[in-house]
């Protein structure tokens, strides 16, 4: 049985669960309290994830314990490439890459001083990397040959994040910034040069996360429930003008904020 992996918020980190889309059955895959960034291997036979002991690989269906594949303990994102190609890691505000036969020796690939880069996604054929960068003061989606050489191309026009490849590698999905955000599909061409040749607005993005179904025309979305009071408070900016005093008061049993 294959399935969709989900991370579930724990007290410290996350756990990885596998759910079967048809039946709705779920099974816990990891028990490390510090589990984070997780990703299927391209053959669907294992899940790679960040643990407190580094990056580990857990076979699916579960058989035996997990095996270590890299020492790093600071992954924010992990993207597995196809066999013989590169994997990408988001570590702090940089992107590292490593061939699948040397995952314990990643090297910086995109690491600009003073710029946050993240959300790396290796293309289905392993030749391109999509990612977000805060260069210019705004998050935007970019695509770049991996491991290079080759110039990068900007995919989003006025802000974008959370890129995901279409299964055939001809398009990138992403969401615009702000609220309400828009879910976008950008057509990617490599010749005569790497560029986004078309951008289509698909629908309002009111979700907390997503992935692309194998047909490339449907998406699996995380949707906050309307019954959850936290769902209605999405994307609010709270300004507290006297947080030091509030902090001092909270220690005496009082707290408050001004929205």
């Amino acid at each position, binding site marked *: *049985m*294959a*399935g*969709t*992996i*989900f*991370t*579930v*918020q724990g007290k410290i980190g*996350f756990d990885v669960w596998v*759910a079967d*889309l*048809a039946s*709705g059955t779920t099974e816990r895959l990891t028990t490390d309290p510090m589990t984070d960034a*997780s*990703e299927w291997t*391209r*053959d*669907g036979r294992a899940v790679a994830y960040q643990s407190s002991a580094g990056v580990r690989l857990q076979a699916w269906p579960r058989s035996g314990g997990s095996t270590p594949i890299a020492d790093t303990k600071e992954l*924010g994102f992990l993207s597995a490439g196809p066999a013989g190609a590169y994997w990408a890691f*988001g570590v702090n*505000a940089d992107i590292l890459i490593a061939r699948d036969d040397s995952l314990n020796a990643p090297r910086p690939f995109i690491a600009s001083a003073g710029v*946050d*880069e*993240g*959300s790396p996604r290796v293309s289905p054929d392993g030749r391109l990397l999509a990612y977000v960068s*805060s260069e210019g003061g705004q998050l935007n989606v970019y695509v770049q040959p991996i491991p290079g050489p080759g110039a990068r191309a900007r995919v989003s026009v006025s802000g974008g994040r959370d890129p995901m490849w279409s299964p055939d590698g001809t398009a990138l999905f992403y969401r615009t910034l702000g609220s309400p955000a828009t879910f976008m599909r950008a057509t990617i061409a490599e010749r005569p040069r790497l560029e986004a040749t078309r951008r289509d607005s698909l*629908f*309002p993005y009111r979700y*907390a*996360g997503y*992935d692309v*179904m*194998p047909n490339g*025309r*449907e998406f*699996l*979305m*995380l*949707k*906050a*429930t309307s019954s*959850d009071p*936290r*769902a*209605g*408070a*999405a*994307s*609010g900016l*709270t*300004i*507290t003008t*006297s*947080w*030091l005093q*509030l*902090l001092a008061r*909270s220690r005496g049993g009082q*707290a408050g904020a001004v929205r």
Partner: protein
Amino acid sequence: MTGPSERVAEGVVQGPQGAVGVAASRNGVLAVLASGSANADMDIVTVTDEGVERPTAIPRRSWGDLRISPDGR
């Protein structure tokens, strides 16, 4: 700043790689960008590229990120 930690905000938005949406100044101004979804119960739905939403059989939980297996099941 020294002293014990205190909870001053919840549901803080994270950046592309875990950077959080918080800015604090020395004069006591704290800006918090809240996602509203941290630890929230989540439904799993499918959505077509035309925005048509359908429920799935997966139970409601405090699901976090998700990744579809290569075979899409």
